[in-house]
């Protein structure tokens, strides 16, 4: 009752200031006065963000963009309005990590396992993370297809952004078996990954020929290769668990250069960044995480995450950050980026990496990643620099709904 009263009073105050009272329209929000990082142009010192029906309606400067009647106004003066962060490598949005069936499993998918409103996701949004790519683990070379989900939503439709989100390939490390005595080392694994992708490409080409009327006989449907077709159509990327110089090199050569897939390097740690020129040549993006630093035995220098890729020449449009949650907790995504900045990444590049770059890596740049008219209303209000451990999230919006409100829910992080 008291809350209602407060709202009433507030409304009255507003009414007194701005004339006749319009009833609040559901799903309409106006964030006013804060510094707005649109990620689609200059940031706005004192901005206004209008949200309606789950989408960004308009973004402008305070004083220039009027707040229409009926919008619930959130005063963000002195605060920062930042697009919701996008996690490129998450294992906590669904309950299973992975099934180790074969060494390569292109037929598996996480879609049927997504949990709605899991505790993990509640924590994620309290940290300003609004979208995650949930992918299978790295127990096998090809864990299956992941899904892109929002961290808040009441129905599966609201939560699911896209399936397939990406194909998960793990090139080395976890899927390695012994020293070739049983299973595969890196040589065998590369052959198996390439083999199944080449088979998938043949399958895709056979179907394309049929669909374009070049052949009359309809190929048999094979669920094993069906999702691989989207990769060759360029609809979604391959998220590759790859790190260490040699392994990243094989990722870039085999998947990007030879098979021409859209590749996102996940992990990318240790001395993987020495391959930067190969990544640049093949238009590959690099997302780094979890927090593994590289204390070079060669020269005693300390290298950190995406900073090394960036200063080796990978452009600011191709730099990303990931946590590998739960390895690093999901809500520590901005802290992960802070560590990249600590080791030399410019702050602006880190912010792009968490927002518009991540959206682009997932082929979702038209829907997510920036505050622009028509995009999903996913954003967070921060007390300050989001990378500073001292800053915190005040409110998170997902699809235009209040997903987290520190004042309402209590401060989580």
């Amino acid at each position: 009752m008291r809350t209602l009263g407060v709202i009433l009073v507030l409304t009255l105050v507003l009414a007194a200031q701005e004339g006749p009272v319009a009833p609040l329209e559901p799903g309409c929000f106006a964030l006013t006065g804060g510094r707005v990082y649109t990620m689609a142009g200059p940031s706005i010192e004192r901005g206004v963000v209008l949200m309606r029906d789950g989408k960004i309606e308009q973004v402008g400067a305070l004083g220039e963009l009027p707040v229409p009647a009926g919008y619930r106004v959130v005063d963000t003066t002195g605060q920062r309005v930042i697009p919701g962060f996008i996690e490129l490598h998450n294992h906590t949005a669904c309950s299973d990590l992975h099934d180790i069936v074969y060494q390569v499993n292109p037929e598996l998918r996480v879609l049927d396992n997504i949990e709605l409103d899991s505790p993990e996701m509640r924590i994620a949004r309290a940290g300003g993370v609004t979208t995650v790519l949930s992918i299978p683990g790295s127990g096998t070379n090809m864990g299956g297809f992941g899904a892109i989900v929002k961290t808040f939503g009441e129905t599966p439709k609201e939560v699911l952004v896209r399936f397939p989100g990406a194909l998960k390939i793990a090139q080395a490390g976890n899927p390695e078996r012994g020293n070739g005595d049983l299973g595969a080392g890196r040589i065998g694994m590369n052959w198996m990954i390439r083999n199944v992708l080449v088979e998938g490409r043949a399958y895709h080409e056979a179907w394309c020929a049929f669909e374009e009327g070049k052949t009359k006989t309809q190929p048999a449907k094979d669920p094993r290769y069906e999702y691989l077709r989207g990769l060759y159509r360029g609809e979604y990327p391959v998220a590759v668990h790859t790190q260490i110089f040699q392994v990243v090199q094989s990722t870039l050569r085999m998947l990007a250069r030879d098979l021409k897939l859209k590749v996102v390097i996940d992990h990318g740690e240790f001395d993987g960044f020495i391959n930067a020129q190969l990544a640049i040549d093949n238009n590959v993006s690099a997302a780094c995480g979890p927090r593994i630093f590289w204390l070079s035995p060669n020269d005693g220098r300390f290298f950190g995450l995406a900073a090394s890729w960036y200063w080796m020449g990978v452009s600011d449009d191709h730099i990303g950050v990931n946590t590998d949650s739960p390895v690093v907790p999901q809500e520590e995504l901005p802290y992960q980026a802070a560590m990249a900045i600590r080791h030399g990444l410019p702050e602006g590049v880190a912010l792009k990496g968490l927002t518009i770059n991540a959206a682009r890596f997932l082929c979702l740049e038209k829907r997510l990643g920036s505050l622009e008219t028509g995009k999903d209303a996913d954003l967070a209000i921060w007390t300050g620099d989001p990378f500073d451990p001292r800053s915190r999230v005040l409110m998170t919006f997902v699809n235009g709904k209040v997903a987290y409100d520190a004042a309402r829910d209590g401060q989580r992080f």
Partner: protein
Amino acid sequence: MTRPVMDSVSDSLRALALTLILATLVFAQETPEPAAGDDAAAKAPVVAWHVKRAHTITGGVIDAAVILVSNGKITAVGKEGVLEVPTHATHEERRSLTVAPGFVHPAALFFGAGERFDLSGSAAKGDETVRGKLDPQEADVKKFARSGFTTVALMPTGGGVSGMVTIAKPVKPVAGLPEIGSLIRDDKAALAMAFEPGTATRDFFLKSIEKARKYITDLEAFKKGGKPAEAKPAEPKSAEAKPAEAKPADAPKEGEAKPEEKKPEGEKKAEEKKPEPPKEPQKDPKLQPLVDALEAKLPGVLFISGAAAFLHTEALLAADASFRPAVAFTGAAFRGGPDAWRVVAGLKKAGVTVLMPPQMSNVPFIATLRSTAAILLDAGVPVAFMPEARELEGLERFRGELLQLVRHGLHPDDALRAATLTPAEVLGLGQRTGSLEQGRDADFVLYDGEPLAPTTKLIAVVVDGAVIHDATKEDR
């Protein structure tokens, strides 16, 4: 500090030998000829080695050199045409080869002496030797003969006072198991010690040094027949002699301190009894080597792991100015190669010789390859290389390792000295081997080029004047 004679001979013989050698040395300075006036020497068979070049170490490089060898000793070294060769000499024509002293290995674990340098613990093995453990195999002796090493020190291992160092030389390989005695020349040549920093090991060394010093002062007092003197370390350095121990935190707490301070036993007795005439202090065979080391009668080698350990060793060196063993950096605990460069000032101040593996240092946080040997030598710290090889096979790499250091700035002459004369001096054999000069053992190696050039091959090895390996006459 060097001992002129290695064989176990009586004191008088020892003295005689010393006099003889000194005499020949003086004589050699005047006439660079083989002891011409000595009838016995004149009659003895003499071999004249004619070589392209000789690296004498102590007397520079001599082109077109002649080395005269008689009775296993070098009797003269000089230039072809200048040095007079006795008419009855036989000739070794090796005019295309270069000669250098054989390498001296100051810390070997061959022939079953040990597995690795174990630094832990604080055993007082004193006069124990490794001789009983040695078990050379036929193949090993063959490898040894071809290694280019003409002297090796076989080391006892283990933390504390590890025991006595045995000196071995290679012999011409013969069929069947070799006689151990044919290899060994001395089994009490030096004292080996090992120190791993710790409270117990530190106390062990400090107490041992104190005991040894007390024995020396007591013995002196006994010989003088006077009062037993208070044991005083030699020239204690006031600032460092006393490790800062009395700290406020360690002070007894108020109220807990015992009301009556007990006086040390000795003091009480001194008050009660009249001083007796001093007794001869009892000789402790376990302690005696350390006593000898403090009196500079026996060389010592102290094994430590690296620079950090040396900082802890400084407290031991500060305890007695005569406790100056050569310090061997095993590098076992250090992953960036020998790191003695970190403590070069301390090493210089202590005035010790450093034994170290012939390696570059590549240390994280330093970022560059550095030549520890060059740094030490430039600072005036003598360096002796101790090949890393634990197996005889590995010795073949030794020259390559030296070459690597030369490539990185170590002067080849410095490298050669650190592999020959300096290790010999560390073992007290500086007057016996390690250089090509009159009176030294005829221990040398013939190469087909400069000893430290990449394409050079080892051609022949001569020990005590005998050719024990000759590649031109053997199937390899």
